[in-house]
């Protein structure tokens, strides 16, 4: 793209706002990270301690060595990746159907997918618990994954449908006229074009699962325990383990951020560049 703006103009119009944006996004997180390296005595002190005299990694050491946190991170990762795969696997075909076909019950079904998501989840967790118990899925990875994936499906279908609607139908129709099968058309034409949308929907499901607490609390137990539940363990009846909590909170955000950095570099950029040129 041609850019006729001067350097100063660019600085004020792009780089400075971008820097402010990063500060907004990071400030509370940074405060948590700083808290996590304070000795316990400095955490709740008046006046506020901005930077500890003796930064310490003791909370991280305790977190990794004396709690189940590392295993919980792994559990969360397995659950989130599986929920993401399952969620996309179910919602991409559904979104394709909604976007490319006019059929009986289309609007009804689409609305139903939305309606079902409007119920406050909190009231559904006890029936859900009973249902999972009868399916024998309590405290198993598939149980939590199924919970996260199904509750993400409606969102995913809707997002994907609107991305797919943005891709001209004429493209795949032309391909099919040229003799490509439906599956070929989907795999070769539609999916690459919809890739940014699919990736961001995938990230959406991943993050939703990564951060989800209520289902994870109800459906998991000793075998599977996600980080959100593990973090909640640091908030007791009479004390909050601030050191452990902030250390855990600091670590929890890292995988998603790194994932995003990776996706950013290797998927979205390349794929859109390819798609746009076609």
């Amino acid at each position, binding site marked *: 793209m041609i850019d006729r703006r001067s350097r100063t103009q660019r600085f004020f119009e792009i780089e400075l706002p971008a820097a402010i944006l990063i500060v907004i996004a990071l400030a509370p997180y940074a405060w948590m990270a700083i808290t996590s390296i304070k000795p316990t005595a400095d955490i709740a002190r008046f006046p506020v301690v901005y930077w500890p005299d003796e930064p310490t990694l003791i909370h991280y050491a305790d977190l990794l060595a004396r*709690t189940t946190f590392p295993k919980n991170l792994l559990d969360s990762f397995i659950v989130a990746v599986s929920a993401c795969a399952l969620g996309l696997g179910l919602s991409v075909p559904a979104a394709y159907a909604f976007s490319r076909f006019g059929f009986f019950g289309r609007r009804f079904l689409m609305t139903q997918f939305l309606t079902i998501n409007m119920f406050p989840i909190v009231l559904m967790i006890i029936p859900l618990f009973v249902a999972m118990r009868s399916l024998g899925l309590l405290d198993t990875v598939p149980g939590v994954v199924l919970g996260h994936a199904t509750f993400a499906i409606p969102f995913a279908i809707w997002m994907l449908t609107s991305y797919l609607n943005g891709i001209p139908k004429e493209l795949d129709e032309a391909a099919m006229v040229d003799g490509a099968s439906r599956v070929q058309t989907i795999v070769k034409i539609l999916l690459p074009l919809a890739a940014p949308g699919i990736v961001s929907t995938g990230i959406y499901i991943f993050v939703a699962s990564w951060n989800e607490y209520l289902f994870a609390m109800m459906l998991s137990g000793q075998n599977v325990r996600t980080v959100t539940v593990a973090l909640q363990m640091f908030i007791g009846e009479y004390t909050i383990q601030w050191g452990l909590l902030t250390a855990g909170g600091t670590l929890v955000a890292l995988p998603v951020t790194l994932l995003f950095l990776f996706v950013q570099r290797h998927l979205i950029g390349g794929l859109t560049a390819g798609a746009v040129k076609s």
Partner: protein
Amino acid sequence: MKRRTFLAATTAAIAAPAIVNAQGTTTVRWWYHFDNPQHSPAELIAKFEAANPGIKIQAESIPWGGGNDYYTRLYAALVANNAPDCAMVKLANMSRLLEMRALEPLDQQIGGWADASDISANLWNLHKAPDGKRYYVPLQYVVLYLYYRVDLFQQAGVAAPKTFDEFLKAAQATTKGDVFGFGMRGGAGGHDHWGSFVLGGGATFEKGGMVTPKALEANRWFVALGRDHKVFPPSAPNDGFRQIVDNFKAGRTAMTIHHVGSANEMVDALGDKVSAVPVPRAADGKGWTSFGDESNAIFASSRNKAAAFRWISWLSTNESNVEFNKFTGQLTVSNKGAANWTLHPKRFVDASAQSLAIADTLPNVPATADFLRTVWPTNMQRALLGQIQPDDMMRAIERHYHG
């Protein structure tokens, strides 16, 4: 009685093949919550299992989540017929669990337990159900007392208060600059603070007990501490235990009400500058302080009641109970265990013991849990903010309990 024998017979019939596996071991599922997840009951369990071959304890740590998560999980598990054999429970939930017919009466087993007499009769009485039976085995407890700053009191020339009037004077004398006289807890759980002055001042949970002239006056006096005398920090309506403890530690308040569970962190932060006395009493000598309980109970659905009782009674026995309290920072229920107590500085254990005389729990009825979580905080906050009159608050509580 008949029903129970029938139930016992059927459960025994069903249970026999289920509880004993090939090696002849019984597995007892037990739910617990510890404030610090670095603590694990694994050592205690290993000790118990060594002494009781044939019983395996499967301990499950459940997030406390302000009490909400723990009990949501428990009720859901009971409804789904997936409850553990035994679990840590509190008195506030006893009547609800009884209504669900979820609890197993333990009188018979307690009768056959030699160390039951090591737990004081007072404690057993506090844990009795309204129907006179015993469903809970006490595990640990705390009693709320008044923390005060020795140094700030000296500077202001006041002594630790014994009566409400002295309390007000001390609070006013220590409220200056950055410091507020009393760190009041207005968020959920703060009924403890209110109770000391309003229940201590004559209000009761009997029908009409919240709206007697005396009760209304006591509540007006308490609300006035915040609204007129301004001895509470402005953040009081939303403050929880963490804020009152942190504010006191940071030197922003001169008094607050909490219990021995925070004594060690208070001493770490303030050293000799902090001490404790029982909460002040009304002019007529009446007083009230909150008894914070924790027990174990066995569920009616359990197929391993005998083994479960072995475990929970063992946890409440002398050394093992002392060990257990090292994880939780509370007080042992065992008289022998209390005799040489080293977990907290003596002045705080003494203040707890002296407070036992006026320590009580809230009524053991289903409405109490909701009173704690929503009715009290919402109305107290609105009264402190001047959105409703103090008397409206008392009428709302009366309505909640008596319609």
